[in-house]
């Protein structure tokens, strides 16, 4: 008797929860942007849920450095969320190839993105797009405008002017000229090498030539950025070898440093912390009047877990992510993440406006190591982190670094052999 009763109760509750979930669907988003948790919870998700009653969104980020590992384990175990924030290029392509990401080519919202914007989340032949592009980030330098005024220097446009400014701060002694450290390594490559590099290898031209095997990492265009990086070390703070990424951020926002080699994603955080006026300048060119190139990196997109049980609702959300409304909300809630859509999105933040204005003056490129070249072992991106940090520390010469990277790349990448 009592067992029957228990069975009935269990059955009843199962049916009830089943019925409830038919009305209310909760979609979980996997992401590495734990910095954006509040913005998703307070701005983006409410905006979507207001229009789409019955679909709840949950944003569950993990730490950036662990994201790929965590996500892969979750996908293997079948416990990953419905929506998956996509890293550009191979990390996501591998997920698509292994059937973890669904093909989204037929999504209506895809029309709102140029082929360049989609290229980071497409198969090599461009036949399938598996993530809706969300944003790109632009590299440059953020500077302390009050400090520039105090020391009496102008915003540099050429490499010589850049080092003249650094020398002026070095002489003044009141500020650490350059806020960067080598402890975490990636800043050296991302905000160092790939920030200043496009001016040397002429953006897409050099990047594509490297992929085609027509240029090599030992060419002057690829070694020269290291030569500039080697000079940076002298302008960094005492003990920069052990200075971490958050250390550098804090040094700058506390007003103790003059120039911060940046990615535009810093804007949100810096706006809330810095009590001085900030400005931004693009990576300096070699000679006045040279063509300029910037790293405008396709950084973040969102796709659908192929194993999701709520595919229909997930597609509704993804259509919304591709809409003008989302582009406007996202670009203004997170100044520094620039929409990849073809909508003309108005932005209010002056720093973000400065960054995005370079798109009109210079040619855009993406980070050199991201497409195809980091497919093998040794991994070119990881090696570039190591080499950039080594060069800044003075532990390796620019020429040796270039030769080492080339040797590693040629060991598995046929066009370079």
């Amino acid at each position, binding site marked *: 008797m009592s067992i029957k009763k228990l069975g009935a109760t269990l059955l009843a509750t199962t049916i009830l929860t089943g019925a409830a979930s038919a009305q209310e669907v909760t979609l979980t988003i996997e992401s590495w942007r734990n910095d954006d948790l509040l913005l998703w919870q307070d701005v983006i998700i409410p905006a979507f849920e207001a229009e789409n009653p019955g679909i709840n969104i949950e944003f569950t980020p993990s730490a950036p450095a662990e994201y*790929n*590992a965590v996500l892969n384990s979750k996908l293997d175990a079948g416990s990953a969320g419905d929506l998956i924030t996509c890293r550009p290029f191979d*990390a996501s392509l*591998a997920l698509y190839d292994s059937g973890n990401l669904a093909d989204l080519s037929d999504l209506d919202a895809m029309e709102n993105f140029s082929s360049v914007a989609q290229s980071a989340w497409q198969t090599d032949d461009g036949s399938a797009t598996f993530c809706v592009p969300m944003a790109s980030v632009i590299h440059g330098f953020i500077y302390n405008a009050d400090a520039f005024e105090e020391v009496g220097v102008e915003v540099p446009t050429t490499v010589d002017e850049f080092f003249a400014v650094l020398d002026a701060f070095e002489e003044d002694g009141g500020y650490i000229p350059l806020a960067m450290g080598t402890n975490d390594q990636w800043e050296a490559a991302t905000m160092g090498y790939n920030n200043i590099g496009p001016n040397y290898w002429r953006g897409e031209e050099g990047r594509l030539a490297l992929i085609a095997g027509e240029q090599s990492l030992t060419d002057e265009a690829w070694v020269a950025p290291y030569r500039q990086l080697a000079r940076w070390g002298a302008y960094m703070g*005492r003990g*920069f070898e052990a200075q971490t990424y958050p250390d550098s951020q804090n040094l700058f926002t506390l007003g103790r440093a003059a120039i911060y080699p940046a990615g535009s994603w810093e804007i949100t955080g810096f706006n809330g912390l810095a009590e001085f006026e900030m400005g931004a300048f693009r990576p300096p060119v070699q000679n006045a009047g040279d063509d300029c190139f910037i790293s405008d990196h396709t950084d973040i997109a969102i796709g659908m877990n192929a194993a999701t049980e709520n595919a229909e609702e997930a597609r509704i959300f993804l259509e919304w992510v591709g809409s003008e409304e989302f582009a406007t909300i996202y670009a203004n809630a997170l100044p520094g993440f620039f929409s990849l859509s073809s909508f003309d999105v108005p932005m209010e933040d002056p720093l973000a406006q400065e960054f995005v204005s370079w798109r009109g003056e210079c040619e855009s490129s993406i980070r050199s190591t991201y497409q195809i070249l980091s497919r093998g072992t040794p991994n070119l*991106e*990881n090696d570039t982190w190591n080499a950039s940090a*080594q060069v800044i520390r003075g532990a390796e010469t620019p020429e040796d670094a270039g030769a080492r990277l080339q040797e590693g790349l040629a060991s598995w990448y046929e066009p370079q052999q």
Partner: protein
Amino acid sequence: MGNSRIKWHIIVFLAPAVLVYTAIMIIPLFNTLRLSLFTEVDQERIYVGLQNFRTLFGDERWSASFWNALGNNFWFFIIHMLVQNPIGILLAAILSHPSLRFAAVYRTAIFIPTILSFVIVGFAWKLILSPIWGIAPDMMDAVGLGSLYQPWLGLEETSLTTLALISVWQFVGIPMMLIYAALLTIPDEILEAGECDGVTGLAAFWKIKLPLILPSIGIISILTFVGNFNAFDLIYAAQGALAGPNFSTDILGTFMYRTFFGFQLQLGDPYMGSAIASAMFAIILIGVCIYLFGIQTRMRRYQF
């Protein structure tokens, strides 16, 4: 029925431990060993025998990374053996001295870091040693040694030793407690008999206590060995998975993690990762066997 009685109570009492241990240790262990014999081609798992190990030891790059990590691991272990364990023994000897006051306070204070999380220890020491916010540079300045300060965690020559010493600081409580317990079990009669024969003070420690605690020191050594060759957390918390600067703090644990789970643009390779994990298992197994058969069997035990 009477003669061939199965001793059910033994099975019942052993079952929980055996089942849990099998499920969470033995099966994963053998699965890892098995996984290291496979690789993946076009989404399909294929058997390749020892190919992964041939790559690991034969390929120039893989083997360079492996030997670098192994060498770093040995250095990590040597620092622990030379610093942590002697200090632990010394502290235990001091603590067990009958005339020491507040022994319980010291004992607790020294043991507390052991129960802290690696993440907290790594973060706290990174802050202490930070060139920007750390108290280390200021303290050294205060005593006139400011010029000796270096960003130790950021320099290739010093970072591994620094991390090893941080780990020593964290875990010195364990040898201290084990030796302390061993020292307490030494009967007073023996020490008194020694006194009658004129063996007191330091001589009593070297000639009576030390031989009696040697088995404990052996156990501590093997625990240190296993713990160090399985280490990962502290390095990962302090230096990240790339174990910078320039892989100078890369140990087998971080090397395995990077390979198995991937890192940044590098995709994970569970098969090579398992090969490294198997190599780690073999190294630890050999080390433990050398101890068990080579050292422990020859150790003299005293019955009181």
